[in-house]
């Protein structure tokens, strides 16, 4: 099982039925991500990147084909099983950070830990994770509205790492940041990769994609190249 790819897509298609006819958001896509790899999925707007990300992230299911996470097919999983995968196996990092506005930075990182392990003292791990992504301790009790974009993304990365997921799934992680902050965030992600983490990153930015080991090019729902 250890040799199995972390993520494997076998002939995956996603079809939306429209009045004008079927639209293939993904058309017979095949690829895999091995443990420890940093893979970027690149493509222009409307190419099917987000659909692909949602499939890998167990947020959506394909119309046909098989997606395997850690060698286990997610195709016939129930909603609760998919949710369990999202909680335990995948660490999400979003373009818009997607922190919970009612919670502080500390609580945002603590939240997945409570979901997985229940209400107990998680302070040591939360603080360790926030320090690891360069988040200063004096801002831990601040809500997302009181943080800059860069700070929010650091919290988002710490949250994604909270439950020690099998891989990190990053959706345009620097899309809402300036170039300086983008570099800092990409450095953090690059460090995580160097520590052995598996990363799958969706981006349209070639500079960001440069941090990846492998770049998969997608266009009109099909993989058209790999660099």
């Amino acid at each position, binding site marked *: 099982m250890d040799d199995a790819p972390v993520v494997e897509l076998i002939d995956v298609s996603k079809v939306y039925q429209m009045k004008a006819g079927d639209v293939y958001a993904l058309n017979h896509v095949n690829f895999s991500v091995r443990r420890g790899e940093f893979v970027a999925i690149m493509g222009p707007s409307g190419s099917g990147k987000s659909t692909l990300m949602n499939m890998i992230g167990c947020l959506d299911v394909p119309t046909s084909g098989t997606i395997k996470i850690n060698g286990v097919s997610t195709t016939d999983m129930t909603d609760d099983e998919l949710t369990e995968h*999202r909680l*335990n196996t995948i660490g*999400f990092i979003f373009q818009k950070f*997607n922190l*919970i506005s*009612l*919670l502080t930075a500390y609580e945002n990182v603590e939240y997945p830990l*409570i979901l997985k392990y229940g209400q107990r003292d998680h302070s040591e791990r939360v603080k360790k994770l926030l320090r690891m992504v360069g988040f200063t301790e004096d801002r831990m009790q601040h809500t997302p509205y009181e943080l800059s974009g860069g700070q929010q993304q650091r919290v988002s990365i710490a949250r994604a790492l909270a*439950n020690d997921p099998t891989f990190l799934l990053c959706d345009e992680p620097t899309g809402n940041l300036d170039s300086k902050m983008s570099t800092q965030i990409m450095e953090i992600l690059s460090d995580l990769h160097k520590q052995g983490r598996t990363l799958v990153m969706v981006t349209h930015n070639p500079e960001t994609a440069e941090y990846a080991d492998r770049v998969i090019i997608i266009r009109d729902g099909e993989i058209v190249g790999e660099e």
Partner: protein
Amino acid sequence: MIVSLALRNLKLNKFRTILSMIGIVIGVFAICAMGMVSAGFTDEMDNMITDTADTLTLSPLGEKVVGGHTAVGFSEKDVRNIESATKSVTKEYELVPYYNTYKPVTVGKDLLTASVYGLDSNDMSGLVTLVSGTWPKGGTNVIVGEQFAEDNELRLGSRISFLGVSGQEITCRVVGIMENTGLLTFGIATDSSILGTTEWYSSVVGNNYGLYDKIIIKAYDPEDLALIDEAVDKKMNGKEDKDSDNTVSILNSYELMDIFDEIMNMSSIFTTVISGISLLVAAVAITNVMLMSVKERTREVGILRSIGTYRSQILQMFLYEAGLIGLIGSVFGVALSLIVSPVFMMIMGLEFTAMFSVSVLSYIPLGIVVGLVVCLASGLYPAWKAANLNPVEAMSTD
């Protein structure tokens, strides 16, 4: 954390939360206050009439000519006929004919009007209870009601006077104080009454040409009471289709109690419907508020779902919110009813202690449970809707 999120959202939208709570406060208050007042009133009425609820009260109908005079009342022959009808049903009964009217009485310097009763000394103990003193004997001793004594500062040995039938002043001594029966009683209402022997009554009021004003029949089995009612009616009132020949009007305490219970049940249904409508309005308002909350927090729900929150937990989060609104609103509604209900009860002439009966206090848990259930039921659809949002679509909402 789920509870904490629910609490924080309620705090974040304080004004909206308070508005939806007000609906529940009003609904629960309406249920509790109306229920408490109604239960208190029913309890009090039951207490007041239960002691005398084994009674048939007979009043005469139609005039009689006695010695050339016209009068209304029961003759000795009527009494014998009624007694024989009663005996045909049971041997265990008490039959007491008595005189009764309103009569001016002088207490100290005050001239008052009191309800005066005259009956055989041997019958008194069956109808009234003495709290102090002795039973009256002869033509100048009387007993008075506790309330009457208190209102007029009368004690044992005090004197009151009447203008007798022949115009002379008759001074009487209070030899006993009767226990209050309350005004709602089927026997003799003692509270503001003066009671003496038939001899005393004849000298003070006259003897109504030998005709009694009322007859009380007591039987200890409700079934006997109904049968006596039937037997007396048959003997004294003749055929059913000739009401004009009736000589007796019969007041059956059990029948009246049934009617009273029926009225109270109707009143209870009415108040429940009114309260139900206000709760329904509150429920609609809460559903609306919760739906708005779901709409506003669609993106947040999407994020929570994407990072591993189960559908059931999203459902719980919204139900906690509805439950908290319900619980806090219900507690305030019950508290408000506990303040207002005693005031209403006292306005209706009930004692403050009427609040402390089990049937009144049972509205406290009932109000809280009803408020909570209504809120949870109102929050169920919005919570279900939130739990079933598609995470991808929800996250893309701004």
